[in-house]
Each structure stands twice: as C-alpha cells, then as structure tokens.
C-alpha cells in the first residue's frame, strides 16, 4: 500500500485544516491554552469559579426557600429538605407589593400601575425612531409627565396622596426619571453658559458646576433636608420629596454640563464660524448646527451620568425616604423576618442591575445608530 500519491503540478486538492485547528478543539486551543501564561490563567480561573460559583448558586437557588410564612418556617423547610438554609426568598415574595408600591394606599395602587404604563408609552417614541405614529407619540411624551404627576399626587377628582406615602421601586423611578428629564435641559444650558463669550455668564456657570461636582451628593441631600428651611421665607414649608428632586436634578445637571462641554469642545471651530457666516443667530446655530453634533458625541457620557443618577437614588434612605432598600430595612423590623438583610440587598441589586444594564445597552445601540462616520 502506497501512502504516496502524486498530482500534476498545481492540481493538488486543498486539504481540510487539521482537526486540532478547527471546531471546539481548535477554539479551546486558541482561546484557552495558547501559551503557558494562558494555561496558568485558565486553570486559576476555573479553580476560582469552582470555589465561588457552587456556594453562590446553592445560596441563591438550590438551598433557597421560595415560599414560607416566617424565617423559622424557612429554616424548618430547609431542614426538612436536608440542607442548610440558603436565601429565604419567601420574605421578598410576601413583601413584594411593599417593595413596589411603598406605603401607597392599596385601593389607589392602580394609579401607579397606570402611570408606569404611561411612562413606558411616553418613552417609546423618544427612544426609538422607527415606530408608527412617532410624531403624535412625541406630543404625548410631552404631556405625559403632567398626567403622571396628577395621577400620583391626586387632586382634581382623585384622592390626594401625600408624598411621604411614596416608596419602593416607585420612588426610585419617580426620583430617577424626574432627575433625568430635568437635568438634561439644565445641563445643556449650563454647558452653553460655560462656553459663552460673556464673562459674567461663564463665571456663574463655572462656579455652580464646580461647587456641585466638588461635594458628595449625600451632603447636598443633607443640606436639602436639614437647612433648606432656613433659606426660605419664614413659615414656608417645602415637601421633602420635592427638595430631594430639586437637589438630584441640580446635581446631575452639573455632571451632564461637563459631559456636554466635552462634546462642544470636540467640535471643530469651523462649525460655529460656518454657522456665523451663514448669518444664523446664536440660538439658531446652536439648535441646528452645534448641539446636534455635540450631543451625539456626548451620548455615552450622558447615559453614564443618567445611570449614575439612577444608582444614586439609593442615597435617599440616608435622609429618611423609603426607596426599596429603605422599605426592605423597614420590613425587617417584623420579628418574623429578622436578619434577612442580605436577601433584600441581593434583590434590590438585581433590580438595579437589570435597569442600569439595559440603559447601558441602549446607549450602545444609540451610538451605533448615530455613527455617521465611515
């Protein structure tokens, strides 16, 4: 048997690649074991995962109890199952409504649900531009905040609900969304002011931005909660939630302003000169030439600021508002469920992860969509 076979010159058929270079084996060789360092890293990582993952999964899923009436109940169920108690998710299940609605009156909760759907409906035309009836949708988005405000606060035919009843994820959304909606226009104004040719304007904007960015949000919230009353005419009282909303909006506006300033500075000077030579007025050139380009460049930064603002809403527990963390801690006062703080933290962490991660993904989508270069 001859293993040699000859072909005329140039007629040798292409051989398939060696099996060690393609398929799963090839992929593993290239991506996991391509060099000595890589082998070491792979082995160490697998060991690390082996140490961390099983106990974590056991705690979250396999040893967890999903329905019970108290923590002792959870323990008993786990014992009956012959394993140690993992997470006691039954607690979250029982208190789920409190986590979502806070102290909002039970019979009025439909208003929160309706507001939530209105908010989603109002967001759609803003976020995506390939949907039907976008133009009418945008008008709706403009009105929606007022409708939602009316629904949540009541009055004019609805039972009034005071803001100290707000809590849970609903409070997070109220603070987060108001902050986001309010801080963008304010941030743009501050950024333009900082780039302005008028020295007084510039000075005021710089002082404001640098002051806000220089101090932690928590101190500003303290200012809002402890000493704002001193600065108001005697006798005026000011809703705590409203103070927080104002502070959060001002806070993130300063950061947005810096992000947009970066976008403005990245534009070539020729753009504004061209706009000037076309005879456009200041606001025209800003609206038609400068801002569309500057905002496009700053999108990743803007979304990052929004994510930061959204995450910072958790700080309100420190001045006594009840966001999901606060609600969770409050419900721990119930002796039946004492000591389950880790479950609350993990649950709230999952909520924040899902919302912030989707925001980050949306920003990537937007960046791709708006990328008009080559």
């Amino acid at each position: 048997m001859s293993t040699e076979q000859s072909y005329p010159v140039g007629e040798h058929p292409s051989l398939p690649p060696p099996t060690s270079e393609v398929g799963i084996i090839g992929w593993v060789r290239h991506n996991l074991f391509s060099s000595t360092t890589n082998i070491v890293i792979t082995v160490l990582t697998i060991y690390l995962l082996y140490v961390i993952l099983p106990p974590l999964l056991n705690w979250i899923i396999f040893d967890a109890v999903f329905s019970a009436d108290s923590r002792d109940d959870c323990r008993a169920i786990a014992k009956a199952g012959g394993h140690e108690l993992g997470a006691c998710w039954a607690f979250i299940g029982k208190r789920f409504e409190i986590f979502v609605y806070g102290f909002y009156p039970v019979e009025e909760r439909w208003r929160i649900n309706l507001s939530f759907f209105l908010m989603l409906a109002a967001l759609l035309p803003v976020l995506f531009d390939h949907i039907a009836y976008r133009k009418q949708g945008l008008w709706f988005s403009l009105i929606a905040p007022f409708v939602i405000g009316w629904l949540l606060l009541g009055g004019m035919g609805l039972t009034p609900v005071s803001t100290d009843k707000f809590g849970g994820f609903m409070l997070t959304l109220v603070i987060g969304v108001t902050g986001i909606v309010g801080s963008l226009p304010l941030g743009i104004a501050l950024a333009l002011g900082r780039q302005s040719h008028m020295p007084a304007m510039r000075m005021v904007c710089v002082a404001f931005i640098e002051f806000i960015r220089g101090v932690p949000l928590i101190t500003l919230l303290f200012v809002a909660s402890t000493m704002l009353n001193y600065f108001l005419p005697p006798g005026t009282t000011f809703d705590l939630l409203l103070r927080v909303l104002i502070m959060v909006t001002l806070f993130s506006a300063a950061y947005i302003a810096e992000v947009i300033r970066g976008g403005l500075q990245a534009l070539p000077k020729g753009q504004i000169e061209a706009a000037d030579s076309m005879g456009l007025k200041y606001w025209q050139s800003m609206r038609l030439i400068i801002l569309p380009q500057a905002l496009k460049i700053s999108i990743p930064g803007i979304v990052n600021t929004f994510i930061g603002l959204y995450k910072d809403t958790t700080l309100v527990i420190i001045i006594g508002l009840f966001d999901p963390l606060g609600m969770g801690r409050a419900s721990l006062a119930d002796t039946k469920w004492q000591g389950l703080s880790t479950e609350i933290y993990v649950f709230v962490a999952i909520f924040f992860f899902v919302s912030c991660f989707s925001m980050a993904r949306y920003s990537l989508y937007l960046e791709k969509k708006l990328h008009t270069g080559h």
Partner: protein
Amino acid sequence: MTTADTSSERSLLYRLFNDKELRSVTIQVITMALILAFFFFIVSNAVTNLETIGKGYSFSFLWDASNYDINQHLIEYNSQSPHWRAALVGLINTLLVAVAGIILSTIVGFLLGVLRLSSNWLINRVVYVYIEYVRNVPVLLHILLVHGIVVNTLPIPKNALMAFDGTLFLTNRGFYTPKPLFEPAMWAVLIAFVIGIGFTIWFKRYAKKVQDATGKIYPVLWISLGAIILFPIVVFFLAGMPLTFEYPELKGFNFKGGLVLRPEFVALWLALSLYTAAFIAEIVRAGIQAISHGQTEAAFALGIKPSRTMSLVIIPQALRVIIPPLSSQYLNITKNSSLAIAIGYMDIVATIGGISLNQTGREMECMTIVLSIYLMFSLLISAFMNWYNKRMKLVER
C-alpha cells in the same frame, strides 16, 4: 458714538436689546442682578430665620466638649474632646479610607483592565461579567452587602478564622493583625529608605546622561530596587532587627491588643475599592486600546525589545489617556466615602455633619465645614490635573 452713526438715531433702549455688543452687556447685567437678588433673598431669609429662633451664626461651639465617642480614632480623642477635634478625627478617617481605597482600587483596577484585554476567552468573560455587575449596582448597596457579609457571616471572635499562620484573624468584630512596635533604632532603617530613594533619583538622571552620551544602558530598575528595598533591609538587620510585634490575644469575648481593622472600615474599604476598581479597569482598557497598533509595530521595526516597547512607547502614551479620568475616579472614591454614614463608619460627614450637628443644632456651621472640606479636596485634585495636563500636553506644530 459719532453723530454720523445711523444707529444713534435709534433709542438707547432699542440698542440695548438689539445691538450685539450692547445686548451681551444687558444680558450679563440682568443675570448678575438676578443672582445677587437671589443671594440677598436667601441670606436675608436665613438671617431672619436664625434671629427668630435665636441661633446666630458662630463657630464657637467647636470648642465645646463633644460628649460622644468615636470608635476609630487615629489621634487622641475622647468624649470630653471638643467638636473640632471630632471633626479632625472624622477627616482623618475619611482620608484613611480614601487613601487605602485608592491604593487597592488602582491595583485591582489595573489588573482587571489588563485581564479584560487578555486573549484568554475565559478570564476575559469572567472579568467582563464582574465589571458589568459591579458598575450597574449602586455603591451604597455594595457597601451594605459587604458590611452584611462581614458582620453576619464571619464568626464571633471565639471561633475566629485564622489566616497566614495566626497573623490575621477574621471575626465579625473586625480583622486583627499583629501591631508593629518600633524601637528607636528603626529610625536608621527609615533614613536608609530615604537615602535609597534619593540615590535612585540621582542614579536615574546619571544613567540617562550616560545613555545620551554613550548609548550604554544601565539596569536602572534593578539597581533602584536594590537601593530602595534591599539597602533598608540590610540596615534593618545590622541595627539588630529593631521591630517587635504585639500579637492580638483572645481575652474574654474579644481580642485584645494588636492592630484592629474595624468591620465598618473593612466593609467600606473593600466595597469602595472593588466598586471603583471596575471603573478603573474600563479606563485602563480604553487607555491601552487607544494606542494604535502601529506604535507597537513601529517600535519593533526600530528593534526595540518588547519589554522596553511597553515601558517606553505604549505605557507613556496610554497614561496620557488614563490619568485624567483616573484622577476623577480618585475624587469619586473620596466623595463616595461619605456613604460611610450608612454603616456607621465615623468619617467627616458622620462626625461633624452628623452627631455634632444633631447635638448642637448648628446645621449651617456644620454643613459649611463639611462642604468646604470636600470642595478643598476637589480643588486640590483639579489643580493637580491642570498641572498634569499642561505637562503632558502633546507638543504640536
């Protein structure tokens, strides 16, 4: 204006709003007037309000006894100490956790950033998942979660977890390690260390001069390491090892002696560092990716060794991109350390802005102190950044 000017026929009022130059003045005057009016309004309100309740605005309370204890104080402090000392203790605690956090987060962040770029698929994914998880969860939650883990899952001191052969005890009351006790001869080691650093600076200049003149390259790194590390160690042994350790001992329900890291400090430190490390990792990744591959290829084409390509070509350029956002992360860590109040770590906000404020009712004064201290940090970092940017600016045509 000349009399021939046609615009002078228009009234001054018209020009104030329609002449480009004059309008800018008008707008500025109106803005300043509004802002001054606003400040006048709030200040006069504050004065009236303070007068009504008879408080006034004075910092004399700072010299009264504080009447509260602070569990972690690096300087002498007890409940009879004045409020300003409480503020100082808080400030030191803030700085302590900030500096410790900056060090740890930089190390972890650079490591993660480099691993994120690794060609190894597994580690790449693991780091990606870690970074995304950490960045998308509020830092307050991280702090509470880590604090919960330290307090709830670590054993009581009696069953302390022992690590590194009895030199580190992990308990829910804190982490205990031996406390180094310096004897007088330790000064010699310190002096040796300073001399080592001085020598290194001189040697680096000298080596550069030699290299510029003759092309001869000294192993600067090894010689400096020897001068900074080996030399003090030799002195340490020559001086008869002037260092003893005070070991923590279990007495009753808790450890006595040794160096203790309190659970609040540990939780805050770890949570802040790991949180910021995720951001630093992304900054480092972006910085390294910003350097075009042509730079590496060009360096190789010139025959520069890979290690020197990294240290002479890639890293200096990457640092130019990395350092500005990095410094703002350092500022963030300092500001985020104010969340300490959620777990009872006594930083500047918790001492003067928390307990002192509640005890004395001096909201204005206390918040002024806290705000100005943070502003000072921020201005210092900005000043450093401006200096750095000026130094590192690419010299273009």
